[in-house]
C-alpha cells in the first residue's frame, strides 16, 4: 500500500504513540458518554441522583421494567412504522427520480440539483404553524400520516442527491447494451442499474430511516402525547417522574439505552455503507 508507506515512513516512535493517544481520545469522546448512560440506567432508585461515581450501586434492571410499564413499547412501534413508511416511500420515489436526473443532460441536471438542494436547506420549523392548522382541519394530528408525509418531503431531496451520485457512477454503456438486447427502458433500469446501485440505495435508506427515527420538532408538535402516534424521541423528552420538576433519571437513561444499543450495533455493522452515503456529493469520487 503505497499511500500508507508515504505517511508512515517519516514517523518516529514518539509520534506514532502520540497519534494513538489522540485516537484513543477520539474513541473516548464518541463512546464514553454511552458508558456513563448504561451505568446510570442500571442504578436503582435514587442511587443515580446521589452520586456521580460510576461504581456506586445498588445496580439492577428495575428501570428497564418501568420504561415498558409506561408504554414505551408503543413508542417503539410508532417510530418503527413512521420511519419504515418514510423510508419505503422515499426510496421508491427517490430512486426513480434520481435515475431520471442522472441521465439528464448536464444543464438540466445542475438546475434540478440546485432546486433539490434548496429544498434540503429548508428549515422544518417554517412548516410547523401552517401544517398544524392543516393537519388539525384534516384530522391528521396524532396520526402516522401526519408525520410520515412531511418526513418524506424532507428526506426526498437528500435521497435524490445521494442516489444521483451513485447512478452517475454507473456506465451508460451497460444499459445501452441491455436496450440493444431488447430490454425496455424500465427493464434496463430494474434489472441492470438498480442492482448495481444497491449499495447506494441501501445507504440512502439508512440515512432516511435515521432521520425519521430521530425527528423531534414535528413529532412533538403534531403528536405530542397520544400513545397511538407518539414516537420515541417525544417519549424520551416527556418522561415524568413521581416528583414533579424532577426528571426520572433512571427511566430516561434506560429508555435511551434501549434505543441506542440497536442503533450502535447497526452502525458498527453498516459503517461502510453509511459513510459512503453521507459523503456522497460532499466530495468527488
Amino acid at each position, binding site marked *: 500500500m503505497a499511500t500508507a508507506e508515504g505517511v508512515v515512513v517519516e514517523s518516529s516512535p514518539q509520534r506514532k504513540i502520540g497519534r494513538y493517544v489522540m485516537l484513543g481520545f477520539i474513541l473516548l469522546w464518541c463512546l464514553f458518554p454511552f458508558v456513563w448512560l448504561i451505568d446510570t440506567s442500571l442504578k436503582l432508585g435514587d442511587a443515580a441522583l446521589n452520586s456521580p461515581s460510576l461504581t456506586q450501586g445498588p445496580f439492577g434492571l428495575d428501570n428497564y421494567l418501568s420504561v415498558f410499564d409506561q408504554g414505551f413499547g408503543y413508542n417503539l412501534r410508532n417510530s418503527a412504522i413512521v420511519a419504515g413508511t418514510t423510508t419505503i416511500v422515499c426510496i421508491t420515489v427517490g430512486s426513480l427520480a434520481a435515475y431520471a436526473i442522472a441521465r439528464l443532460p*448536464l444543464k438540466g441536471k*445542475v438546475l434540478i440539483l440546485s432546486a433539490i438542494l434548496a429544498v434540503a436547506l429548508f428549515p422544518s420549523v417554517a412548516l410547523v*404553524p401552517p401544517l398544524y392548522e392543516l393537519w388539525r382541519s384534516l384530522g391528521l394530528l396524532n396520526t402516522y400520516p401526519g408525520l410520515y408525509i412531511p418526513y418524506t418531503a424532507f428526506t426526498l431531496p437528500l435521497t435524490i*442527491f445521494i442516489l444521483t451520485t451513485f447512478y452517475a457512477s454507473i456506465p451508460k454503456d451497460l444499459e445501452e447494451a441491455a436496450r440493444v438486447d431488447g430490454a425496455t427502458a424500465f427493464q434496463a433500469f430494474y434489472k441492470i442499474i438498480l442492482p448495481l446501485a444497491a449499495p447506494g440505495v441501501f445507504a440512502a435508506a439508512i440515512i432516511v430511516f435515521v432521520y425519521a427515527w430521530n425527528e*423531534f420538532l414535528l413529532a412533538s408538535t403534531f403528536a405530542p402525547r397520544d400513545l397511538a402516534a407518539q414516537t420515541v424521541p417525544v417519549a424520551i423528552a416527556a418522561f415524568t417522574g413521581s416528583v414533579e420538576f424532577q426528571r426520572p433519571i433512571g427511566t430516561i437513561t434506560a429508555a435511551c439505552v434501549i434505543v441506542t444499543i440497536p442503533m450502535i450495533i447497526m452502525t458498527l455493522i453498516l459503517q461502510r455503507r453509511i459513510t459512503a452515503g453521507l459523503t456522497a456529493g460532499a466530495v468527488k469520487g
Partner: protein
Amino acid sequence: MSPSVLVMALVAAFPVIYAVILSLYLYQGRLREGFGGLENYAEALSSSRFWGAVQATFIFTVTSVGAEFLIGLGFALIMRQVFIGRGVMRAAILVPWVIPTVIAAQLWYFMFSVTPGFVNFSLGLDRFNWLGQPGWAMFSIVFADVWKTAPFVALLLLAGLQTIPDEMYEAARVDGASTWQRFWYITMPLLKPAILVALLFRTVDALRVFDLPQVMTNGAFDTESLSILVQRFVVQTPNAGFGSALSTLTFILVLVIGVLFVRALGRDFVLNVEDE
C-alpha cells in the same frame, strides 16, 4: 421524476404560501379574529423576544459550527494518519451522529445537572449550576451539539482528505516544505470544497436548532431559539397568525444565509456529481 417534484412542491412550497396567508390574519387563541395585514410582522419585529431568539440562534450557530469545524478538522487529520482500526474508528465516530438528538440532550442534561453532577465531579467543581444561568446554559447546549456533530464533520472532512494524493505531500516534503506549509498550501486549498459543504450543512442545521435547548433548558436563560419560539405559538400559546409570521421570518432568514452559501460554493458543488 415528476411525482417527487410534485410531492416536494405540495409538502414544502404549499405550506410556505399557506403560512404567509395565515400570517396576515389576527387570531385569538385558535380563533380567527379578522384580517390584520402586516400587523403580526410589526409585532414580531418590535418584540424583544423575537430579537432575543434571533440572538440566541446566532450565538448558537456561530459558536457550535466554529467549534465543530475546528475539532472535526483535528479529528480528520488524526484519522488520516492512522491505518490500523480505521473501520472501528469510523464506526465509533458515527455513533454520536446516529443517535437521536433528544437522547444526546437528555444525556448531557444529566451530565451537566447539579445532581448527580458528573461534569462538576470530573472538573472538581462543587454544585456549579451549568444549566441554570445565562451564558453557561448556552455553553452546555453548544457543548452537547459539538459532541454530537464534530465527529460527523470529521467524517465529511476525512472523505475530502482521502482524495488528496500522497504524492503531493511527498513532492512538497522533497522541496523542503514544513508540516505547517504542507497543511496550509496543500491540505487547506484542496479540502476547500469538502469544508464548504460541511459548513453549509452544519450552518443551516444549526440555524434550526430545537431539540437541544428544548430538552436541556426548555428555552430558559437566553437559550430560546427561533424554532422554539415558533413552536411556542403553535402549542403553548396558540396563535396561528403570529406563529406563521415568526415562521415566515425564520424561513426568510435561513433562506438568505443558505443562498449566500450556495452562491459561495458555486456550480462546482453540484457539478461534483458529474465528475465520476
